[in-house]
């Protein structure tokens, strides 16, 4: 049974394959319709700033005729006045039909959902989850590959701290015959608890080599300088895990390159011209996916 009305979107763990597919199907059909959610108020509570995510939600609700209240950054918010998150949620829900929350602490969005009587969407809770990004990634994969099951998917870069790759890997366990290739420097490998969740559900391999042959999807993440004790090691790694014209020669013509953005230099600008480069489409896809979720939660279908 799929029941969407009033539901929360907190973690990709909460969704079955069927539910993920219905979000993708709904997103495909979304187009601007100012009547669909006319009069709806979205409360956008960004306890830490994330301009892109906030833009994406704002655009999504406005294209459906709704409006936005909210704040971004902790100074302007109730945190500064010492109010608890629970109290903020109990107050805000009196003004709004749905809450979108981004907060630096892990579990904050779950707490908000437990407290609120209206739907809550997690737009990032610390290092934990950012499910609308994952839905967007899956939608983009499906859009360019026409399917998800059976794909060979490479994840490249910082697999240790990269929240997006953790969630995506978890979501891929819902699909059959996935082959995952985890490409990272040794100190930035996928955490063991996540590997345990992948075991027996999909096939994965780990490598330090930038081997892109045979992949349908290459999902690139940023390697941050803070993750390295010494700068030399960082420079070496940064030079190794880079997509440029040369390394992209390994790619299948039908492959799709994705990146959650912003990128620094892990994808050379020259790659943008390649037919496989789809990371800007990926950003754009965030809007119909969020429109689909807003519609499902507020209208039930």
């Amino acid at each position, binding site marked *: 049974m799929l029941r969407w009305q009033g539901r929360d979107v907190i*973690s990709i763990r909460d969704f079955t394959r069927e539910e993920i597919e219905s979000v993708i199907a709904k997103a495909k059909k979304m187009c601007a319709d100012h009547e669909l959610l006319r009069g709806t108020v979205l409360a956008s509570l960004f306890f830490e700033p994330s301009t892109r995510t906030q833009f994406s939600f704002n655009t999504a609700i406005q294209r459906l005729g709704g409006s936005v209240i909210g704040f971004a950054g902790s100074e302007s918010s109730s945190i500064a006045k010492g109010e608890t*998150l629970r109290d903020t949620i109990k107050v805000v829900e009196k003004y709004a039909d749905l809450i979108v929350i981004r907060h630096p*602490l*892990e*579990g904050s969005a*779950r707490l908000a959902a437990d407290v609120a009587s209206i739907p809550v969407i997690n737009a990032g809770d*610390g*290092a934990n989850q950012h499910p609308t990004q994952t839905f967007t990634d899956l939608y983009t994969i499906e859009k360019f590959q026409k399917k998800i099951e059976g794909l060979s998917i490479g994840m490249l870069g910082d697999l240790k701290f990269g929240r997006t790759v953790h969630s995506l890997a978890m979501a891929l366990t819902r699909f059959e015959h996935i082959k995952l290739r985890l490409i990272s420097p040794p100190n930035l490998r996928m955490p063991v*608890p996540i590997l345990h969740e992948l075991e027996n559900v999909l096939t994965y391999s780990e490598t330090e080599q930038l081997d892109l042959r045979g992949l349908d999807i290459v999902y690139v993440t940023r390697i941050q300088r803070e993750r390295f004790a010494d700068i030399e090691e960082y420079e070496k790694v940064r030079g190794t895990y880079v997509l440029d014209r040369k390394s992209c020669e390994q790619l299948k013509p039908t492959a799709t390159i994705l990146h959650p953005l912003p990128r620094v230099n892990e994808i050379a600008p020259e790659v943008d011209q390649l037919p496989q480069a789809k990371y800007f489409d990926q950003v754009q896809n965030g809007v119909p996916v969020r429109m689909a979720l807003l519609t499902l939660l507020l209208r039930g279908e």
Partner: protein
Amino acid sequence: MNEELKVTKIRNGTVIDHIRAGMAPMVLRILGVERGFPEVVVMAMNVRSQKIGFKDVVKLENQFIPDELVKKIAIVAPQATVDTIKDFKVAQKRAVELPSELFDIVRCPNRNCITNSAERVPSHFTVERRESVCLRCHYCEGLVEGESVENLL
């Protein structure tokens, strides 16, 4: 039960039996038994048991264990039994059982978890695996496994 343990039969109190061998000190810690504890406490370790091979046993005079503490004991000694003794007779027999969810019993080890913030949310874990216990935080979704749980009680 063997001879020495019979000697220490208690009139009123609690017998915790079938504790996984080696875990009695942990059970005592959970029960708050430390220097200055006013009652008679008997602890036996590595006693031969037909049921589980070797076991530990703890007896406490005039102490009755609330259900909340029984849940904590279940985490470190999943096969333990907790018998309430009144007038040398077993008045109540409880098998410890790890519930599927634990509220305010285990601390989340993640410093960045909302349960460790000024928000003062009681911890909430779901039990993912019972044998060699594995818990997942309801909030931050982090896992706690095996012996590390003992330090979080």
